[in-house]
């Protein structure tokens, strides 16, 4: 399924992009365009390759993987685990857990001024909450933020549960259920 979404393209345009299940071709763009061009050498990264995990997740029913695409370029990606994770609240509600949320290098102000697109991270977060609603989890979403991204989640009022020693001390954030 493909959803049309709208994002700001500086300086003043609003453009229509799509969000849909990630394809192997888009994972190839992560390898080649998001990462390899930035490497100083042609040696592959010795660290765990997150694109490899995305490739596996595409065929695993526990996971959902989505990508935002504009002009045939992958702009952002989100990997959701939808069956096993539970809320940190005492009631241990089921929720959508964000395994990965990432934006393309060129969509951040520190790299590109102005960024190629504005709002990719926010749209992926909004999409996670929508999937939580559709799965019957009432909008509950949890994730572990990387250190440089904590301000982003705080800006969008995602409650902060503090560092998690099981995840290398990354701070855990969790949206609660919507009150309607």
């Amino acid at each position, binding site marked *: 399924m493909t959803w049309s979404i709208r994002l700001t393209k500086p300086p003043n345009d609003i453009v229509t992009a799509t969000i849909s299940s990630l394809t192997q071709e888009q994972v190839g763009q992560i390898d080649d365009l998001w990462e390899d061009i930035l490497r100083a050498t042609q040696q592959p990264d010795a660290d765990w390759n997150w694109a490899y995990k995305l490739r596996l997740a595409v065929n695993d029913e526990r996971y959902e993987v989505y990508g935002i695409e504009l002009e045939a370029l992958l702009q952002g990606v989100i990997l959701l685990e939808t069956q096993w994770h539970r809320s940190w609240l005492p009631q241990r509600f089921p929720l959508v857990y964000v395994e990965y949320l990432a934006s393309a*290098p060129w969509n951040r102000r520190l790299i590109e001024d102005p960024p190629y697109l504005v709002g990719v991270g926010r749209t992926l977060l909004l999409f996670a909450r929508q999937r939580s*609603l559709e799965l019957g989890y009432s909008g509950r979403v949890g994730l572990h933020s990387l250190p440089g991204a904590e301000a982003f989640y705080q800006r969008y009022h995602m409650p902060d549960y503090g560092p998690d020693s099981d995840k290398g001390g990354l701070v855990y954030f969790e949206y609660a259920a919507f009150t309607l």
Partner: protein
Amino acid sequence: MNDAILAEQLRKTGNLLDLLNDDDWVRNADEEDFVEAGLGLQPYVDLIQGASPEALRRQRWYVRVLSILLPELKQWLESWQLGRSFEAVYMETQRRLYKHLEQLTSEQQDWIKALLAEAAQALPKEQKVIRAQATTWLAQLFTEEDWNVIAQAASQAIAHDIQHLGQQTAKQTVAQQ
């Protein structure tokens, strides 16, 4: 993004993504720096933070060029009606294109410069005469060796799918007996 606004949207339409039809909501997004979540993404963030200015400049150039050429390439390949082999062919042609962009001839560089200059003018699509040449340019860029590798990728994808689908169906039949 506060829950009061999102809850109001849910009451109105039942779908949070409808907020993206609201121009004010879309324009209110802040410019983002790092948004990454998930321990496995630390190497990716480290790579971006440690990238040289030259590498970032090169990536910026690739993004500008590919945002024009990839839609044209995709449309061209879609017109071939490749069916199940489309994705494999599209992936391989992208890889080949990246390689060629690293070593353009001076004539090819001139054409790319003209393409980018035209894109900067924000003309209506029908007035983009350089972009209209993109398919021909791509066809001339790819070599016979490229096409051989691309054709092999297509045949391997088809062979894999035929074997996978055949075996999958055989398992279903056995289970029903």
